[in-house]
């Protein structure tokens, strides 16, 4: 079992279980439901939310692979590192970058290391090579100029993207950085894991 950054969880689930109450989060399960469907062999992350009884506590159930990405000690501020996740298929190319400032979902001692998918969530434009160190942004997309804020879970700064840039969920184990999941649908796919 691995620990999730509670801030990421808050960002995803809402700070007081808002998302669950809104009924929009499909992959949230109550602990009871989870227990009933146990037997999954993939990574499972349990998230406790204060003030909720255990049976209501949602869990993020992920079937994503746990993949080694880089050494923490090798990362330098504003020098992006490219990798593929969650598979080696189309649109899997992603960016790992140490922003040098605290960021939503950031890991490492300064909570400033984040990773995102490289494909624009508007019309699939490639964002490789568009990292803007001064603004901690990706873009503008060469197709229609969308820009994304990497300090804020990949929300678009300006432009036309239909959703935030999918954020790769990271965790640190000693000096190793692992990718363990994704938030948001990757462009081109109908399901992150099925293509």
């Amino acid at each position, binding site marked *: 079992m691995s620990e999730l950054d509670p*801030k990421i969880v808050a960002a995803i689930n809402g700070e007081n279980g808002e998302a669950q109450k*809104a009924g929009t*989060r499909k992959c949230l399960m109550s602990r009871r439901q989870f227990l009933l469907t146990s037997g999954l062999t993939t990574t499972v992350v349990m998230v406790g939310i204060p003030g909720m009884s255990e049976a209501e506590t949602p869990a993020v159930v992920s079937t994503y692979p746990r993949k080694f990405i880089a050494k923490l000690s090798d990362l330098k501020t504003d020098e992006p590192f490219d990798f593929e996740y969650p598979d080696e298929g189309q649109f899997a190319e992603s960016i790992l970058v140490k922003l040098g400032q605290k960021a939503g979902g950031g890991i490492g001692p300064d909570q400033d290391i984040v990773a995102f998918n490289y494909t624009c969530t508007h019309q*699939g434009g490639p964002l490789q090579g568009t990292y803007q160190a001064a*603004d901690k942004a990706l873009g503008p997309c060469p197709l229609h100029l969308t820009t994304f804020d990497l300090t804020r879970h990949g929300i678009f700064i300006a432009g036309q993207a239909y959703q935030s840039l999918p954020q790769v969920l990271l965790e640190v184990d000693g000096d190793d950085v692992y990718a363990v999941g994704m938030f948001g*649908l990757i462009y081109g796919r109908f*399901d992150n894991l099925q*293509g």
Partner: protein
Amino acid sequence: MSTPYYVPEESVPLPPVDADVISTACDYCIVACGYKVYRWPVRGGHNGGPMADQNAFGEDFPVNPLGPWIAPNQHNIVLHNGEPHHVVIIPDKDAEFVNPMGNSSIRGGAIAQKVYNPQTPTRDRLKSPMVRMFGVLMPVTWDFALDIAAEVGNYVLRKHGTNAYGVKTFSYGYMENTYAITKYALGNVNTANFTFHDTPSDVTSTPGFRDAGFDNFGPSYDDWAEADTLMMCGTDPYETKTILFTDHIMPAIQNGQKAIFMVPRRSTGTAFAEKNGGMVLDIQPGTDLPVVLAIARVIVENGWQDDEWIEKWVNNKWESSSGFGQGTRNTPWQWRTTWGKFQTKGFEDWKEWLLAQDYSVPEKAAEIAQIDVQKIYTAAEWMAKPKADGTRPKTSIMIEKGFYWSNNTGNTQAISALGIAVGAGGRPGQVIGRAGGHQRGGLRGGGYPRNKSPEKLPGRRRRAMDTDRYFMAGHTRLAHVIGTTWVQAMCGSQSLQAKFEEQTVRNPHQVMSFDKQEIIDTLKARADSGGTVVWDQDIYLVDPIGARYADIVFPASGWGEDTFTRANGERRLRLYPKFYDAPGEAKPDWWIIAQLSKKMGFEGFDWKNSNDVIEEGARHSRGSRKDFNMVLVAARREGKTLHEKLGEFGTNGIQGPVLMLEDGSLEGTKRLHDTTRKLPETGPSAGNMFNKKLTHFNTQTGKCNIQKAPWDLFSSYWEWLKPREGEIWISSGRINERWQSGYDDRRRPYIVQRWPENWIEIHPSVAEARGIESGDYVQVYSDRIPVQTDTIVGVEGSDFDFDSLLKNGHIELTKASITAVAIVTPAVKENLGYMDFLHTSQPANALSGRVVDWISGNYNYKMGVGMVRKMGESPYKSQFRSMSFARRDIA
């Protein structure tokens, strides 16, 4: 309201091969991109698969860039014939025009989120008529609500006169609805207390264009792309006409088009233009006119004007005075020319006037506008300097609200003259027009009774009533509000709201009964006592007009809930078919109006469906830029309904005015004022109408009027208003992500996450002086918001000039304040605070002066001043979940 909370999804259902496919167009901005709705039943779990032969797109997943990808925001579940259905709504990948290959903005791209689904934040759609009893809006039957509305309506008309019945309505909400509304309000009620959502008076938005003879929407989208030089005033089309920019203008700039922006704020489109050799005339608010005239001056001083064009297409003295169509008599512009302020004897006379004005000297204009004077010279060169081979650059001019809502008459007069001088107006790639805001869904079912208006300006004609001033004076006893906030959408909105409060909820006559007759009697008593009763017709309960002030609420249906017709910014007419069930008892506006009209005893409202309405209305489109009467003729010939015939054009539509050729086929109109167009030699045979605007300009002679644009008609207001000690300009505009879609965006979790509250962009120098950082809550306030108070009869030429109004006691200074989240950015002019135009909870309009442009009667919404002070930190400053404070002008 339910939690508008964005949660990223990681999968989406695919439409199966046999999904229903419905062609439609976007509900939002003027561009109206083509869309396809894929619909299939939830029952049976019969979704499509990732192989090409398993889904409705015939594509393997993952799809390629620009392919038919479905973002989770593009899927929803609706009721269709009472059964739950999946809908996937994506831009039409087969579109040939407007958004070729199926591009879209974030707004239209996420349009699937607008449809009613009680599991989403759309659950607060209005579902039943409501009547306020005991201070609470209570659900009632249609008959109960309409009986009250009809009896009180007739009573007010009889007892207090037709002008006591005010109608404030959207102008764009589909032709079926606007036809019914105007047939009722203008044709039958016949009130002069009538106007549209964006102006206090039913007047032209662009008086200078009208006088020059330009239609607002003459150009085609190809024309903007074909220009060598494109001047864009008061708008960044990337933010507000996205696909017009990304699919038409952006490729042109990449191919060498010289782009000139005139805006006080940089954004994505300006950044792209500057990176590719374009320029930004970064003026301070309200100073467009001197800069435009200075560019014109440089052009004529160098002799770069298009002499051949001017010789052939500009009216001389006798021509500009001729006729009763658009001469000096009996026309909307007649009084404007009475005093010789605008009219010229032709090009040479205009040139003489231009050269005599000190504010047209480039150095002087640059000083007023606070820009680099060299930019004026460069703009003049780009727009008009003949090339080495002697040919002229093809120059086009686009204007929009930042421009014509700053100095409405002056700016539009000045730009028309500049356009004429550079030969813009009637040739491919050489056009002048508006970029547009909302789509064009107006169809008049009645004429405005101008002579009933109390507005009388110096000269001989009346002007359409200023409905806000009339309301403020307490004359409006019944306010029938259709699809607009009224209050927040007008200037000086907080004092307007205070008056609404006084007229409605603070009137002693409040309904404290459940008995229909007692309710009627109470509302009559309120009207008799000088108060106001309010009917509100909308899709959501709007605060405050519906939530607080309405006595009756009628739930309306909208996009996708009935079959409608509308045109876009190049007059492209499309069908917007019904594809799902409206929530509860919600009905289309035409139906609501028809039932009310019948109960009030008016005749001619026996329509069975929306097609009946548009078929009746078709002949009223004749002579307009949307003329589609011949589509009806063709439909009847072919035994089809008008809706069926329009549907055959799919997302490509057909551009109005539509002509019928001799073989019975239909031909659209690519551009208006098309001096290169050859009309059929057989003439306007059968039902065809060859309006002058097809091949000529909208004047008596068909040539343009080149007019003067005096700065001093506006400068007294500008000088009085401009920031004093501690103040900055407070202006407003649109933001890409919520523009023409604000009513839905409050319910779209992703957009709410991006823009949870109103915000203000301020320059680092302003921020530093006040200790403000990005993410701080600031108070934006003013104690000198001018409000024009009285309806006066103009006698002297200067009676309506701001200085005279002030001197004669017709200006009251009011206070207002709104809260915003600070965004510190060098993208704005140093002395400018820029806010979202219509954030309904904290409207920037609260700070703009409620003083109409005294020539036209429009508000100059963009003109406001105020102070800014820090209140503390907003939650967005330290949270990472919402907003972004990064620059929007990254290139």
